[in-house]
């Protein structure tokens, strides 16, 4: 039996992409990053990697390269013994799948990619480094508790939090454990790496700054609520932090949001927000602001403000949005507990305005975190009667939430006017998590599959879907390019009882280069999606 923290090492396969193409992509990506990165002062990651949650410290979710819209499955990894490679697109095709589910990958886990490896952890405490070319195991390590969120990589080191109370640092090359910091409770959040330090909160109610190289804790901070005597002090921290390079931003479960000096840990400001939790979200740095999604305490989900939308006239966005805007500002004034997205000034914590944003999210979800589009503006889902980008179907509500930009000077919606209808849709309460590659917006939802849409052109592509017959999850006839199934309990196979998923914390699609080709790598699984789960790599056809 192996020691819980022992690593097992495998021999990595050499990665040799075509040199000329790699250099060209590198040059183009560097150029793009240099021209369009006004949202963060933090150092940018290697252009072709995806080294932490939403790629960078600002949690922009953005890179300049893209794959698709026509794709093929490079590999589909279910566990070490069940890997399907060179999978050709076809309908309802079976992939290599265990008879009984062996691993559960938590909904929040976004695979990260660096040094040609894909890093992620599983509910059983295993942490994997796969060869990004073929999904073979380069190394793996074991922690003593479930891994519930995303890893982070920098300078040859990969860091992960575990519910066994520890934060681990492994050598990205061979999986050797380089250091471990023990906290007072399980670690649920994803680490942030910026400026040679790891920043991460624990459920013990302490925020940690750790030297990436030595593993020495440099400072800690215990979240203060209204006063030093407040009973809500020291609340658990489950939200991954974001940074602009100078400051660290995160929320604690007392619903206060904090800005700390990255060097000293000194509190710069804190702001009280409203809601129930920061779980399943993260802050995003946008120029001089930080955008903060919050899971509300309010009831209802898909039908929020439905009547108010019904009462508006029909028409184009140009005609109706001004009325919607007024309606939602009044609605939020009357129902302040429905506010689900905050914009705060980065330097003061002041809220400059309330966005005219009807609540998005629900069912224990916050709204999906913003992503930064190729033009530097943040994109979010908007509750609206006048969708322009997402014009396809929705569920429950009559109104498809739209993807539109935010005017950061005013908080207003800036909708796109693509020349054609995309036909892509989303749910108000079960959104896709967003990332951006080039001008494309990538959307991932563990139940609904992976899509991509270009807000400028209206072109959309349905990439994948698991084959399923559950409520709303059967996309066989929706034009998905890749449809696969593992063992679907609805087909009477010998499996544990079917569990309808709780797809909390869908993770976004990492957009990277593998073997000289732009590649999409993402998780298709939720905490309790026991009858299907996989890490998937797609590349352009």
């Amino acid at each position, binding site marked *: 039996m192996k020691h819980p923290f022992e690593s097992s090492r495998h021999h990595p396969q050499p990665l040799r992409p075509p040199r000329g193409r790699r250099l060209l992509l590198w040059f183009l990506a560097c150029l793009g990053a240099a021209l369009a990165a006004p949202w963060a002062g933090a150092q940018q990651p290697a252009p072709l990697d995806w080294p932490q949650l939403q790629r960078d410290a600002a949690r922009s979710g953005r890179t300049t390269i893209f794959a698709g819209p026509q794709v093929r499955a490079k590999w589909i990894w279910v566990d070490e013994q069940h890997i399907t490679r060179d999978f050709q697109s076809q309908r309802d095709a079976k992939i290599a799948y265990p008879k009984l589910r062996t691993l559960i990958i938590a909904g929040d886990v976004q695979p990260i990619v660096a040094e040609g490896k894909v890093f992620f952890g599983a509910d059983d405490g295993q942490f994997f480094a796969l060869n990004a070319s073929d999904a073979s195991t380069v190394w793996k390590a074991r922690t003593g508790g479930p891994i519930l969120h995303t890893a982070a990589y920098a300078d040859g080191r990969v860091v992960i939090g575990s519910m*066994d109370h520890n934060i681990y640092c492994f050598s990205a090359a061979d999986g050797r454990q380089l250091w471990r910091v023990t906290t007072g409770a399980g670690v649920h959040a994803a680490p942030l790496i910026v400026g040679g330090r790891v920043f991460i909160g624990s459920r013990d109610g302490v925020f940690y700054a750790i030297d990436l190289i030595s593993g020495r804790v440099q400072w800690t901070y215990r979240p203060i609520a209204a006063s030093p005597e407040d*009973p809500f002090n020291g609340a658990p921290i489950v939200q991954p932090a974001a940074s602009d390079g100078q400051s660290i931003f995160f929320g604690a479960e007392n619903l206060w949001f904090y800005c700390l000096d990255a060097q000293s840990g000194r509190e710069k400001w804190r702001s009280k927000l409203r809601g*129930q939790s920061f779980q399943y979200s993260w802050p995003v740095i946008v120029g001089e602001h930080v955008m903060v999604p919050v899971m509300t305490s309010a009831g209802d989900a898909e039908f929020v403000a439905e009547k108010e939308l019904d009462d508006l006239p029909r028409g184009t966005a140009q005609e109706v949005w001004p009325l919607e805007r007024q309606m939602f500002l009044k609605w939020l004034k009357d129902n302040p507990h429905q506010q689900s997205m905050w914009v705060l000034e980065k330097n003061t914590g002041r809220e400059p305005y309330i966005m005219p944003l009807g609540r998005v999210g629900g069912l224990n979800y916050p709204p999906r975190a913003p992503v930064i589009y190729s033009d530097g503006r943040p994109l979010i889902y908007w509750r609206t009667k006048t969708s322009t980008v997402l014009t396809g179907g929705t569920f429950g509500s009559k109104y498809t939430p739209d993807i539109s930009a935010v005017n950061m000077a005013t908080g207003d919606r800036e909708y796109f006017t693509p020349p054609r209808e995309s036909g892509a849709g989303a749910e108000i309460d079960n959104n896709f998590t967003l990332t951006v590659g080039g001008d494309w917006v990538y959307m991932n939802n563990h139940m609904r599959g992976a899509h991509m849409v270009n807000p400028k052109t209206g072109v959309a592509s349905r990439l994948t879907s698991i084959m399923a017959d559950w409520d709303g999850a059967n996309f066989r006839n929706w034009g998905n390019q890749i449809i696969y199934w593992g063992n679907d309990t609805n087909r009477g196979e010998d499996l544990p009882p079917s569990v309808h998923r709780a*797809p909390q914390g869908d993770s976004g699609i990492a957009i990277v280069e593998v073997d000289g080709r732009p590649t999409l790598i993402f998780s298709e699984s939720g*905490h309790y999606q026991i009858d299907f789960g996989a890490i998937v790599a797609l590349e352009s056809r």
Partner: protein
Amino acid sequence: MTRTAVSLFAVLMLSTYAVGAAGLEAIVTERRAVSDIGPGAEPLKARLVAEVQKVIKAGRLAPFRTLYGEHGLRYHWREPWQMPYTLGLALPHLPPELQADVKRYLAEEIAARPPWEGALLGPDGTKRQPDDLPESVFRAIGAGQTPTAFFPYALWVYASRSGDWRTIRANWPVIQQNFQAKVGTRPNFETASGAIGMYRLAVGIDDSAAAARFLKAATDALTACRNFEAVRASAHRAYTGRENWTRESHGVNYAFFNLTPEIARLIAGDDALAKAAEAYADVGRRIWPLWWMAQAPVGDWGYYGEGCCAGPEQRGMLFNYEAWVRKLPAEQLAMYADVPDALIGDCTYMQNLVTAIEAFGKAAWTARDGRGVGRPGP
């Protein structure tokens, strides 16, 4: 008779002996004592002290409000016995000055919200969560079922650990009356614990006639509880009605609701019961692998489960089973204690902390002495 059959017969006889009539009486009358709690429990004790101090400082608490996805709106710990039970369990592990504060707090709490009365708690009191909901929204607390028949066990924990038998004696007629009104005909671990509590309360106030009556009621209840399928069905019927907001949730592990060490002893002493209970618990673990986490998402058959989290009570169900029946290592229980759902007054979290603390010690059942069950515990 073959050797296998003989062996099987012997096992069955042993099992029957372990929980025979005398065994059942012992479950009712003997007291679980924990001693020699090791230093590994110190961090847990510190966490328990911090939680109890928050309760004392906050004063009377409103129910905990959650909106965990498709579970819908829930108010937790609405039964007035929850706080006397929770702080009663905590008492032996608190420093003396805090014990005094807790006794004062509970005396006031019980006077204001008698655990034997028939109503669930309303929205009054300090909020347990920082949600900043408008009062009109927060106070939209629905009517629910009345408190369960578990309350006498909670009262016994309170009285035996605080020494406040005067309150029990003064309200004994109404306690008896309300318990009788709540006892149903279906077997249920929670109700069986209530019957054990009634016996021990009777002993504690020297009512020998009532003690004899409730000893029989308790052993009868325990006998009925040896049919696990009946217990499971009864629990699921009792707790999954949508009108009971604190209980309706997927049904996973409901049979273990408010499990006590005494019921765990019953399960462990009956092979068939233990096997059935373990099979049931394993289903719970399999479809809810992170059951011990605050806000752990949960799924279920026939329910979409989009965005659902388990409410705090569900964490306690399997926790007690793992601690007392499966006897997991104390270190494992310490991890399972996790963090509170409610930042103030999380009864399940405090109960789990006590259980984890005591797992670092040695537990023993004291010999039956007739009156010892009514005296203060460890």
